[in-house]
């Protein structure tokens, strides 16, 4: 099992969710986050005072998936979230040791 963590532009959330639903990803967790990568921040000017805003709003999607569909999921996120402009985000893939469904006690792939 793998844990997929994707950081995307906020307005791309709906497209990514639909793309993942189409390939039968059963669930995901979404968080509003702030951060920066190569895009860096931007500057804001209030009268004479200029402030550099380092952290831009992003969306973090977390989804636990079966090893068999990892490549499909990555393709789906990448094609849905891509604008081609700097700041599109990143996808992180990490091994997942165990998953437990709290209600039934199922574990592993059955719990996904």
């Amino acid at each position, binding site marked *: 099992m793998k844990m997929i963590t994707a950081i995307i532009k906020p307005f791309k959330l709906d497209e990514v969710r639909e793309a993942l639903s189409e390939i039968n990803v059963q669930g995901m967790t979404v968080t509003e986050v702030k951060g920066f990568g190569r895009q860096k921040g931007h500057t*804001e*000017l*209030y*009268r*004479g*005072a200029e*402030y550099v*805003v380092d952290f831009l709003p992003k969306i973090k999607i977390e989804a636990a998936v079966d090893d068999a569909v990892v490549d499909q999921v990555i393709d789906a996120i990448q094609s849905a979230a891509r604008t081609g402009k700097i700041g599109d985000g990143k996808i992180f893939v990490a091994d997942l040791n165990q998953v437990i469904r709290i209600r039934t006690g199922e574990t592993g792939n059955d719990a996904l």
Partner: protein
Amino acid sequence: MKRITTTILTAMLGLGVALPAMAAPSINKGDTAWMFVSTLLVVMMVVPGLALFYGGLVRAKNMLSVLMQVMMVFSLIIVLWCLYGYSLAFTPGNAFIGGFDRLFLNGIWDPAKGAFSMAATFTKEAMIPEFIFVAFQGTFAAITCALIVGAFAERARFSAVLLFVVIWFTIGYLPVAHMVWFWAGPDAITDAASLEVVTAGAGYLWQQGALDFAGGTVVHINSAVAGLVGAYVIGKRIGYGRESMAPHSLPLTMVGASMLWVGWFGFNAGSALEAGDVAALAFINTLLATAAATVSWALGEWVFKRKPSMLGAASGAVAGLVAITPGAGFVGPMGALVMGLLAGIICLWGVTGLKRLLRADDSLDVFGVHGVGGILGALLTGVFAAPSLGGQGVWDYTTNAMGTSYSIASQLMVQLHAVGVTIIWSAVTAFIAFKLVDIVIGLRVPEDEEREGLDVTSHGESAYRY
């Protein structure tokens, strides 16, 4: 040579003293109705207008402290105004301060005669009830003191703010208001001799012939200088220039600025004290100059700072309102247009270039907008009041017609003198008041309270729940 040959149609007068029996003055109900409306508009300028304008500009952790300071200062000054302020500002005394005739508003209602006293306007025999004049002028005193808090927002101790305004209102505001605005009204003037008597009894700057229709000197320069002195004495906010101190809610600032604009029609057109031609002139000037300054500030930002900002438009509106205040009933509409256009650009410099030169943390740019705009407006009033430039000139109450001579150069010198006197008077009295408060209770909150925010540490509440 005496400079005063004509009595000048400046705003405001105070009167309640016995009038000559020859005239048959009576309350003009139309004028009186307009003064009720105007007074309410000025109340609205402060709470909530100014409070929201300022509140939106601070960080979220200090929102309530600013709202609270504005509302409490307003209320406190109104109380003091009715106790002794009105009497010291608007009754005969000497050229610098009034007397105690109206202490506790005594004598406006005379139970023995069963009569209310009247206040003069700028037209002979047209009167308004003195109580509404007291209320109208009280709102001016209160907004002047409330404006100051923007200069040291986000770090001043609440008790220090209150004690400061009590002292400065008494030794700073009241004398300047008396010097600029006190005169006995036009009713006793019939010839050169009676004009001289009335003029001799007026405030110092009135005697000089200073033109200040609605408070360029008394309200704006006065408060801005006191605020700037405060910003120096109190010191910069922790993290100033290093941490982000971006405004927390520009929509609220826009709402506040808009309420100031609407309320300012009461402030400026109300200062005519009558619902007539001069009020209408002040009204159109207040509309036009403000719109012009909004446009010029935003365009200035567009050209020099690459983007026109909402904060810039709101600031431009206030700058235009400030600049037209001293000239509202004196200059013509095209004069007002020029004053507004210049105010937008020059006050933009006031909050950027000048602010860097001054090296003070004037948190909400009280000096950059009200000080610079007030000085600009006071000086340009001397220029555009000229009949040759479409202005009103000065009214001659001995002939009951517009004065025949108007010299821009000499009026400009008079205006400069009034500006200088106001700056020095305000700066000295503010410095004394701040130092006194610093010794007695301390001007600043402790560092940890400043970091946590004044809402929680000074007032025990938070503006927003997330």
